[in-house]
């Protein structure tokens, strides 16, 4: 008799574990309702949109309900709800390069082609070509790019000055020597920091890869992560962190952890997306706000080739019963006014007119605006392998990064990664 409750609670618990892959959200009604349900990621962009929201609600007569989540939680949320065909998301903020292909292939994203063409004043032609391509699937527009990103070099002006370094490094070799010098002159401060997590580091590593002359995928859908250039890039990135990075460095760092080390004053150089610069220059968040400088991504053997990508876009859930109002929200949130307002508060947008408007870069630190200008010129349009199964691909091509950081042989690891990556590519192209 005594055993019974245990058995029942156990079976319930087990069922809960089992149900994980089978569960789904219920359908919320609201066909053509006055409430637009918007799911957004944690981002400065989102904060700005939330602040400006009353204006939109007043002029449109609609009510906007915002759900705000971290990147990973956002992905999980979409996987569960969109899989179940739930209609309780109308507008979704998504990452064209991360989930775009998968979502479009699954039919989760509504076709917006007619909407973008019909909205003349809003001007679809104003959006940069690269970002537009990444939110287009099989000639159909499935998303409107909101935020673009370029990789730049963050550095500490004061530490460089102290070590007698006049200018920020122009090449990766200089970066290495300078990092070593600053670390030697300042015990307890690392020369260099960057993301170290297997999957998280891939995007920031990509600029190193391109600048060494490598690519993730070569001609004819051949995996290319074991090319000589790629092997050199892996060894360089891993070596830089291993030799000149923080002591006892964890291999789980994404940008919040790496940024924390930089803004706590514990590192001299940091390569990261420019769209996060406010974290470093905001006095409330950063101890080094006054001394942070920005420079274009240092050149490797193949020149300076940072990524220049659309990191976020807005799409409409295909299962939404409120598509017209969802489009109204997107139209407002990606309007020239909102893009300009956002860009002025530090979020790089995708509209050409805003970039060419002097007001668009008026609030940027001068050196950052210059660095971004360089990146947009010679940038590469992707920062991760362009496949459907991006999360899996990132883990594969990211393995040599962590192996290099922990002192294993990056070349052998790159060969193993290449084989696994080729298998994934073959599977997808079947």
């Amino acid at each position: 008799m005594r055993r019974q409750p245990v058995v029942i609670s156990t079976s319930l618990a087990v069922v809960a574990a089992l149900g994980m892959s089978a569960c789904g959200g219920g359908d919320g009604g609201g066909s053509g309702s006055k409430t637009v349900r918007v799911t957004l990621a944690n981002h400065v962009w989102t904060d700005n949109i939330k602040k400006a929201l009353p204006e939109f609600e007043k002029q449109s007569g609609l009510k906007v309900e915002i759900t705000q989540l971290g990147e990973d939680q956002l992905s999980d949320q979409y996987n569960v709800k969109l899989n179940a065909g739930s209609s309780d998301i109308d507008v979704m903020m998504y990452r064209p390069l991360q989930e775009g292909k998968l979502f479009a292939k699954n039919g989760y994203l509504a076709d917006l082609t007619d909407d973008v063409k019909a909205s003349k004043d809003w001007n679809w032609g104003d959006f940069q070509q690269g970002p537009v391509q990444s939110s287009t699937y099989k000639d159909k527009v499935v998303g409107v790019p909101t935020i673009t990103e370029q990789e730049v070099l963050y550095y500490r002006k004061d530490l460089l000055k102290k070590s007698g370094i006049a200018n920020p490094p122009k090449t990766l070799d200089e970066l290495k020597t300078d990092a070593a010098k600053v670390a030697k002159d300042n015990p307890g401060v690392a020369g260099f920091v960057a993301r170290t997590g297997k999957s998280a580091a891939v995007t920031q590593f990509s600029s190193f890869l391109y600048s060494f002359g490598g690519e993730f995928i070569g001609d004819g859908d051949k995996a290319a992560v074991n090319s000589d250039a790629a092997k050199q890039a892996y060894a360089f990135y891993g070596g830089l962190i291993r030799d000149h990075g923080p002591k006892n460095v964890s291999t789980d760092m994404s940008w919040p952890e790496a940024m924390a080390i930089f803004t706590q004053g514990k590192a001299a150089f940091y390569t990261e997306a420019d769209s996060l610069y406010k974290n470093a220059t905001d006095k409330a968040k950063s101890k080094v706000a006054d001394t942070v400088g920005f420079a274009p991504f240092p050149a490797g053997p193949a020149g300076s080739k940072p990524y220049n990508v659309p990191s976020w876009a807005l799409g409409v859930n295909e299962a939404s019963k409120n598509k017209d109002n969802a489009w109204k929200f997107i139209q407002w949130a990606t309007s020239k006014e909102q893009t300009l307002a956002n860009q002025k508060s530090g979020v790089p947008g995708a509209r050409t007119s805003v970039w060419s408007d002097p007001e668009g870069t008026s609030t940027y630190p001068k050196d950052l605006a210059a660095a971004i200008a360089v990146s947009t010129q010679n940038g590469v349009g992707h920062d991760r392998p362009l496949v459907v199964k991006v999360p899996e691909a990132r883990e594969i091509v990211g393995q040599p990064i962590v192996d290099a950081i922990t002192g294993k042989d990056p070349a052998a690891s790159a060969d193993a990664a290449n084989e696994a990556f080729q298998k994934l590519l073959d599977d997808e192209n079947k």
Partner: protein
Amino acid sequence: MATSAPALRTSVSTPAWARWANDHRKWLFAGPAMAFVAVLIVFPVAWTVYLSLTDAEGSVRAEKELTGAANYLDVLADTSRFWPAVLRTVEFTGIALFFEVVLGMCIALLLWRPFRGEKWVRVAILLPLVATPVAVGMMWRLILDPNIGFANQVLGWVGIPPQPWLAGEGSALVTTAFIDVWQWTPMVVLILLAGLTALPEEPHEAALVDGTTGWQRFRFITLPMLMPTVVVAILLRGIDAIKTFDILYATKGKGGGSFHEVETLNVYAYGLSFDYNEYGVASAVLILFFLIIIGSMWALTARRREELS
């Protein structure tokens, strides 16, 4: 509902539905419970079993083909992710369970006899239990951070070099098990304490008169009498520990870290479904996981039954 039963039998004009309801009342009353079980237990399990036999990927609503046992064979042949995950699950559960039961027993024995301030001590000990596992994970992650964490600072004061803790390839799993011990030992204490207070006093008194030592009394009187409670504690805690997800995910993130240091079966299945969208394979892993839990439960209870008879 308003019509009483005797009236039903006598009156001819009773509506047909009421008569039908009366005839089928045993089904009618059990209906809600059965529907609940069907919707929330039978359907998810059956659906998972079905998915595990298909090549579902990308979206569960996409076209999929039945592939029979292919997923199971693939998973069972996978020595790079699946079997290491099984091993880690066993290791994590083993370490956590061992320390939780041993420590739990010690603390329960200390709290057994009344003492001054007993109430306060009990409350303090139970605190970790009521904290949210994700919050606990975040807290320990901060404390154990290799560069700016408090733990290494304390070690530095006494001259011990900083440890990698959660960041180390070899130390991460043990560290997460330690966090689990920190959080869940109080639960074991609670269960054992309940068992201890229910024990009769007489055997102890008799043993005391016979001049036994404290250890002898514990080993030959308390422990055997407490055994049923210990088994319950092991069973409850073991099943919970095997399924641990929150602490592992909160401290190491996706895939249990860059080297899958803490990737147990649960974390692996989560990654398969939510990162890789491999719903077929994920379901197969979950079904195997289900069988492992049932198997170990059965083994534990069977041993217990043997001991009793």
